[in-house]
């Protein structure tokens, strides 16, 4: 998977939230989407770690370990989403109650979010200048 597809993934995941939350005005979401496309067409594929989607039969303890690791990394990058830690808490709470399936899905979602936020951090570090107005 290339950088570009990763970003598309981030964007697709993000899009429904953008539409449902703060910015349900067409103007902004369109603007965001067009900026993204512009940025994508300007950006060159870079070698990146690929997001590993967790396989279904993963052990809960392993998953918890991965999540904890992802959390540490994500916090280092400083791009953690406000939605993620609640998912981690939910995972622990459900695991405690013995609801392994719900716990796993919460942890997996959390892990994905941590990973996406790290992708976002890497993308920003390389491309943040794209949002700076050009000099005249």
């Amino acid at each position, binding site marked *: 998977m290339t950088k570009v597809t990763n970003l598309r993934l981030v964007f697709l995941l993000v899009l429904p939230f953008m539409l449902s939350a703060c910015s349900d005005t067409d103007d902004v979401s369109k603007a965001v989407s067009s900026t993204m496309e512009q940025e994508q067409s300007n950006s060159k594929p870079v070698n990146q770690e690929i997001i590993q989607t967790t396989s279904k039969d993963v052990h809960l303890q392993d998953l918890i370990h991965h999540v904890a690791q992802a959390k540490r990394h994500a916090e280092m990058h400083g791009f953690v989403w*406000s939605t993620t830690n609640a998912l981690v808490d939910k995972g622990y709470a459900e695991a405690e109650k013995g609801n392994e399936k719900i716990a796993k899905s919460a942890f997996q979602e959390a892990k994905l979010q941590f990973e996406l936020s790290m992708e976002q951090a890497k993308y920003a570090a*390389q491309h943040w200048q794209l949002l700076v107005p050009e000099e005249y």
Partner: protein
Amino acid sequence: MKRKIYLTLAMACNMTVAAPIFANPVTDNETVRTFFADVFPELALDSYVDGVYAIDENAREQWLQIEEFPPYEDAIDEGKILFDTPFLNGKSYASCFDNEGISIKQNYPYFDQEKNKVVTLELAINECRTDNGEQPLNYGKGPMAYISSYMASTSSGELINVKVPDNAAALAAYEDGKEFFYSRRGQLNMACATCHMANAGKRLRADTLSPALGHATHFPAYRFKWDDVGTIQRRYAGCNAQIRSKPFKLQSEQYRNLEYFHTYMSNGLPINGPGSRK
């Protein structure tokens, strides 16, 4: 073309460390002003101090009526009382600041070369407290916001005069704030600049997005949503939460550097804080 150059530069550098040697705050400000002059050709530079009320006539009328009897007056009065009350050691806030703390807000944040960090007014207020054996105040609201509001009110009309000295560490802090401002973050994948540069003046639900230029002049601000005055970093945390990004701690290095860049952007505009917002 420009973009390609930037891109190459960015890629040539370490991924997480920006390139301070390329920062040119003076040019940045010219660029930002030219950008906004294109977006709002009718708007005089000084009008940006009114934020969204400079560009939304309907909202402006309501705001002017609110300002007839501004809701932040109590905060200023309370702040003056707190500011004038001596510490247990007999000293007071005045002893910590140039000109006894009166009419100095326009010089903040500044880069302290000894401490090697950006010092905001709120940070300086708390450092003054701890230097005098007092407990630090919570940043963001309450007494801190009152004192800061009072100090801002004594600077009314003074032109923002934030300096970025020609020194690698100061430039790096400025550049770091700039990178924060232009970096997309949060689940909504938005940067400060997404709303307050690229989409300034457009509507987002019922709200008109304010231009980033001029933001710094009217904080602390009384927000009806807060039901009280709050500092600019409290607003940063709120904005970050709204794009579903986990906010940083108030007065963290990230927010101080952001405030440094963000305030520098408004250099030359008069302080009119505290202001009232919806």
